[in-house]
């Protein structure tokens, strides 16, 4: 077990236990055991064997959660500090798993933040109980769902924690979600103005629209959600030719020539043998995983089920390590690139290209067209045998209506644009613009002192808010400044880590990003959100008159 055959890995700056640069991941060695897999991580001077359960091994290897279970005193080994320094100084060497540096941040906030978060939840819970008591005893009008009188002796329907939380905490800030929009979700959009008279139980529309709200919440990574007539010319032609409905499933009469064309194009784009497309993104997973997986233990590569590039964390999966694990243990890898296809990688071909790997390393490539392509639907791609199996066995092919032709044409035109087949470099320009915008936005937020999670190359930027009171305040005030953001709290995130999630788009101009950054700066000071303990630079170009105290 305790052999020292370390693979020659580049020293990676990673985060262990939430502290940035706390250790350098020198390498890892995995050995199977009876009850689990032991993962040895050589880190900045000493080895810490971490015993992990089978299901959690992969998340340990992602470098995000590393909880040392115990230390072997007799097996510690020190590395000379100058050796580390030299390796870092010389940059990335050849012959390693990673071809470029991989930096992710998961900084922990100071302790008082966690204390205050719990205080907030405690007060909210106490008042929740008070309100429930008042509702039960008739002191307050009941607006909530409740069982009928005749059902009072049955098993209670609405007493579990989730419903309690929904009634008493989520409801108070409900106006920040499900906001109806009335334009294309481009870099700017229009919102319908909505007010509530009874503290978010019911809403009514005033009839006005809030125009040109900067959109920092839509998954419009490459900016293909557009209404430009020239761009949508082919889509209009196909709409007039085919109409909108397909009215059948793939296995009956719903396979159109558009689908065949699209599938060939997707296969060429990804560099695989064959692909199959489905009408709905989420249904691609929910309909096909049951067809592919039998009664076996399904390993989860992340906290999120099957989600590799994490939606809420802004992190990128460590694909080279997962592939080497998969090869060692002869497992199959199902890669869900819902968010990363189009958004990550030098030409937008996803995490496989980002790490410089070949698509043959991954058995099942899955992705959606909802995010980067401005359409709807999903695909599964891989070897021809796999896709042929899916054509006959997928639940979606049997029961779900297939993708409608104008949407298929939108994907075709977006993909051709990305690949350069339309004769312009617009696709590549979009990918480059997204990369530039992402780096700029993240760098500025780090400089301002916010705690941002995730990889430096990920266009999903979670900004940590922590306290439940700040979730509502943040979203409302940003809307007052004409910026639309998505805030997330429990249960989509861990209870103490509520956040605002920004999605940077290639369609955002530098002015829009600067507007958002200015607003965030002001709001960060007012709400006291700048918890990061790393040095902040004073950046005179973003301020006019409001930072006088710096010059004192």
């Amino acid at each position: 077990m305790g052999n020292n055959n370390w693979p020659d890995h580049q020293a990676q700056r990673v985060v262990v236990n939430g502290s940035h640069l706390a250790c350098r991941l020198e390498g890892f060695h995995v050995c199977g055991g009876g009850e689990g897999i032991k993962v040895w991580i050589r880190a900045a001077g000493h080895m810490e064997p971490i015993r992990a359960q089978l299901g959690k091994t992969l998340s340990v290897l992602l470098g995000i959660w590393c909880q040392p279970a115990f230390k072997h005193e007799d097996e510690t080994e020190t590395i000379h500090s100058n050796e580390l320094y030299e390796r870092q100084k010389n940059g990335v060497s050849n012959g390693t798993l990673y071809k470029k540096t991989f930096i992710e941040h998961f900084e922990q906030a100071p302790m008082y933040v966690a204390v205050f978060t719990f205080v907030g939840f405690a007060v909210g819970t106490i008042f929740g109980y008070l309100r429930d008591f008042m509702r039960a005893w008739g002191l307050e009008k009941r607006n909530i769902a409740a069982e009928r009188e005749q059902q009072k002796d049955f098993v209670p329907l609405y007493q579990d924690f989730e419903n309690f939380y929904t009634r008493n905490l989520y409801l108070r800030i409900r106006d920040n979600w499900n906001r109806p929009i009335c334009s294309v979700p481009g870099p700017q959009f229009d919102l319908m103005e909505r007010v509530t008279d009874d503290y978010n139980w019911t809403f009514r529309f005033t009839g006005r629209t809030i125009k040109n709200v900067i959109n920092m919440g839509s998954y419009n990574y490459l900016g293909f959600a557009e209404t430009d007539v020239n761009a949508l010319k082919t889509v209009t032609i196909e709409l007039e030719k085919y109409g909108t409905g397909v009215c059948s499933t793939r296995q009956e009469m719903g396979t159109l020539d558009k689908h065949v064309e699209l599938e060939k194009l997707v296969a060429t784009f990804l560099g695989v043998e064959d692909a199959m497309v489905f009408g709905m993104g989420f249904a691609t997973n929910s309909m096909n995983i049951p067809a592919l997986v039998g009664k076996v233990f399904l390993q989860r590569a992340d906290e999120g089920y099957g989600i590799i590039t994490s939606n809420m964390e802004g992190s990128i999966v460590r694909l080279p390590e997962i592939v080497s694990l998969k090869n060692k243990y002869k497992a199959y890898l199902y890669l869900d690139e819902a968010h990363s296809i189009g958004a990550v990688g030098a030409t937008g071909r996803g995490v496989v290209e980002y790490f410089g790997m070949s698509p043959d390393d991954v058995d099942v490539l899955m992705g959606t067209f909802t995010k980067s392509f401005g359409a709807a639907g999903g695909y599964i791609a891989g070897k021809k045998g796999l896709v042929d199996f899916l054509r006959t066995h997928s639940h979606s092919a049997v029961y779900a209506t297939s993708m409608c032709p104008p949407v298929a044409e939108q994907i075709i035109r977006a993909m051709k644009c990305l690949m350069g087949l339309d004769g312009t470099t617009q696709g590549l320009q979009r990918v480059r613009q997204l990369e530039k915008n992402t780096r700029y936005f993240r760098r500025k937020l780090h400089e301002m002192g916010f705690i941002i999670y995730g990889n430096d190359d990920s266009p999903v930027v979670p900004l940590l808010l922590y306290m439940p009171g700040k979730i509502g305040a943040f979203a409302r005030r940003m809307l007052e400044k004409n910026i639309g953001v998505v805030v997330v709290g429990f249960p989509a995130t861990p209870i103490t880590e509520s956040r605002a999630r920004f999605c940077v788009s290639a369609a955002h101009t530098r002015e829009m990003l600067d507007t958002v950054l200015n607003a965030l700066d002001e709001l960060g000071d007012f709400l006291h959100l700048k918890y990061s303990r790393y040095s902040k630079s004073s950046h005179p170009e973003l301020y006019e008159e409001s930072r006088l105290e710096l010059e004192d």
Partner: protein
Amino acid sequence: MDVRSTPSYLYWLFCQFELITCSYLMEPWEKVLFYSFNLAMLGLLLYTTYVCVAFHASSAFQLLCSFLGAPRENALSVVK
């Protein structure tokens, strides 16, 4: 953060209190209830502090004086 004037700084602190304790999200009658409870607790705390600290401070001071003066067998008899 505005350190230009104390009233606006105090207002900012009050806003922070509201955000942290989620009283920002409460309806007005809940806020009244919450603040009155908090003020009552604070008043009780201050009163207890005043009584206990004053008592212990004066007894400690008298004990100290007794060390400088003549030693006594029973230090507690200092307080009468």
